[in-house]
């Protein structure tokens, strides 16, 4: 199998990597790039845990060949906070206790961020429509809905992660 060189931007950093044609963006991100925030949940695009942004578009990285992101901008959950400033949606997830086991959280936040980019003040119906592909077994979704709807109230930089 031919190896491919893929040049892309990962969370704002230019990367040049070598991959096999059959490698998935999910596995390249997690194993080669050691960014394990993006999760494998079902492998067939049914749960949304692997959601990342490719050129600003939510993408199921378990169904995305890595070779095909050549030239693209990829953002994972690790790239959402600006330095030590949480994204308003991340803060809103904490404020609304929308995190339980946390395994679905990165995917939830990535798709929620995409909705808020398009529509900063979504209605509940819009949230439900946009997030119907993200499964969560812990929360029953109410806190997550509140977090997405309430993110507009959290300005960027509202909260800084304490220095280590």
């Amino acid at each position, binding site marked *: 199998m031919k190896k491919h060189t893929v040049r892309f931007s990962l969370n704002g950093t230019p990367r040049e990597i070598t991959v*096999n044609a059959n490698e998935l963006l999910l*596995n390249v991100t*997690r*194993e080669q790039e050691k*960014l*394990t*925030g*993006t*999760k*494998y*949940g*079902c*492998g*067939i695009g*049914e*749960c949304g*845990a692997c959601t990342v942004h490719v050129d600003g578009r939510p993408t199921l990285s378990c169904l995305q060949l890595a070779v095909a992101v050549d030239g693209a901008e990829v953002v*994972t*959950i*690790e790239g*959402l*906070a600006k330095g030590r400033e*949480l994204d308003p949606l*991340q*803060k809103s*997830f*904490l*404020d*609304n*206790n*929308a*995190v*339980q*086991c*946390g*395994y*679905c*959280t*990165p995917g939830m*936040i990535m798709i929620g961020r995409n909705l808020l980019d398009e529509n900063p003040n979504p209605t*509940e119906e819009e*949230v*439900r*429509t946009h*997030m*119907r*592909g*993200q*499964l*969560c*077994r*812990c*929360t*029953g*979704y*109410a*806190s997550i*809905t*509140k977090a997405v709807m309430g993110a507009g109230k959290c300005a960027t930089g509202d909260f800084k*992660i304490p220095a280590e």
Partner: protein
Amino acid sequence: MSATQLKSVGDSSWRKDGISKVTGSEQYAPDISVDRMWYGRVLRSPHAHARIVSVDTSAAEAMGAVCLTFADVPQTRYNERIVSTPPCLYRDRTVVADKARHVGEALVGVAAPTEELAEKALRSIKIEYEVLQVITTIEQAQKDGADPVHDTVLLNGEDKPIINNVAVQRTIDVGDTVKGFAESDFVIERSFKTGRIYHAQMEPKTVICQPEADGGITVWASTQSIHNTRILLGQIYGLPLNKVNVKKVALGGAFGSSIQMNSVTPIGVGLALKSGHPVKIATTREEDMHDHVRYPSEIKLKLGMKKDGTLIAGEMHAFEFKLKQYVGLGGTFWGQGPASKCIIRSDGVPELLKTGAELINWDKRPKPGSQTGRMRRGIGMARGFHTSGVGHAKASGAEMIDYSGAIVKLNEDGTVDLIQSLMDHGGGTNHAISKIVAEELGVPNHMVGISPCDTRTSLYDVTTHATRGIYAGGAAALKAAKAVKEQIIDWAARVLDVLPESLVIEPDQELGQGVIYCPNLAERRMTVGDLARYLHLNSLGTISSSQSMRQVNCPPAYVSYYVDVEVDTDTGQIHSRRAALGSDCGTVVNPALASGQLIGGLSKGQGYALTEDNQWDPVTGELASKGFWVDGKTPSISESPLVADIETHFAHTYEPTGPFGAKGLGEAAKNPAAAAFANAVYSALGIRFYELPITPEKVLAALAEQAAGKTARAARQAPAPVPVAE
């Protein structure tokens, strides 16, 4: 003490693992990798029941892979769940099996330097099977001449024969039911069936095992109990426990699916020991879906009651399809409670029922069968409980192991480390317990950190199961915190030159510290941090305590459900529209998270009641879903009621045996769900359903019968209570 005086317990500040979870830096077992790590895969049986005639791994080995077959693993059988004591622990498993007992049974482990090579090696393995009778029903299994799935089962070292595939029968008799039924005014008899529910925890089971230079192993695993995993691995592989170190990592949900040691855990260890390399096995979703499930059950119930509704006699025949490894592994799922006896010392049920009824407008509920349009609404209620833990072994009669440990230590700057092996499945148990420690010590909540730990640096904790986390685990941590507080007071009394009895500790939010002071001598005060520094700089030692305890009671955590459904009588679909969920968990330690657990219970309960059933093909024993989540059908955000239409409320109770009055919540949150939904459907349609899930197909069939005005209704709706002849 009333809950209103509490400072940390009961607040809804950010959970302590929250930042790492929202930024993607939290490490779950699938996120762990170590240097020189190999990748493992498990070859699983495509047959529901087959003897392994031969296994040829030569091609895999020629590729450089290491294989683990039945011949390579210890042959002594074990039980993967060790919360019971040996006299009631039935052992029937080996690391990999010599016989396939369900589709997906683990038969051979393979490890190789890359995941791709492991995959190729797996596919090169040749197994010759002798296919045996597929048994998918209780009736088939018990027939004379049915192929035995297990020939024997090991109990307390004794190999016990299995007749007609029944390994264990348990009869529980209390009182005189003959007399009770004779004295009843009414007797009703009903049969119920429940579905086969996949846990659908988001994290597929994973293990990483690193062999150590001294012959020991370090293990990261998806588990509800790092200590039970350690004990089992030690027993299976003949390792002393001080050479088995299981690390605590975040758990991506469990719902009972990791009470036992997961099937891949000992396989990963076997591969690591054989290859000499660290080995990681991260299961696929399809493997996971074959590996655990809530047992389907059939229950026959007979109840005798007085005219006023008082229940005075009951008989229940329950067949849980617990025939392990028949056509699918079983496991416990939220809500399958232990048979424990508890002492009720706090009871919020009357309050829950009253509040819930008001929130849902119970008095205005539709009269069953009174509606005629296409869309019909119905309100149903049910209540239930789960014990908080399993209580005292002798009292429960079930010989359960149940104790927790905790280490609390004061750091040199006044912060506190809580070291506890108890796992948090996501509900916020560890966060809650850290608040209990902060409350007791009188320091602000943020001063108590939840320490990473492993089995070598922590005390034993049985398992986070049976709704015991806060009640049992929290009590152990409270015991350690009390001991630490006593030492803090003793030292502070010496430093401040006052009597220990005169000192109190309270959190000072401005200072961000606990302050130790003497209420009637204002100048005699210091912060906990000052004291810690003083002890450190004068080499006076570390204040700490390591405590272990068993809760002797297991108080019921009560939950009430009022749900409002809308039934589309044209499509048979049932929509969940409103819910009022009440919990009596004693003092509420994490209010927002507790509310979230209730709503999560509603979501799981709705799936159980209306849509989910991970059934197998009765002929082949293959899962209808083939393990692909596309046919798993767990409820999504779209199936949930609107946020404003879900109310949660808590009883104002105080459990005297619980830490700061707290009881459990976890599993109880789901227990009444199915009954509440079935009752709501009855309210909407005037039709009773006794079989889960209540699918659109079943609704349409029942409506057709109802419309036909047939007496068939009588068959579906079991007979009305029969007056007992005088």
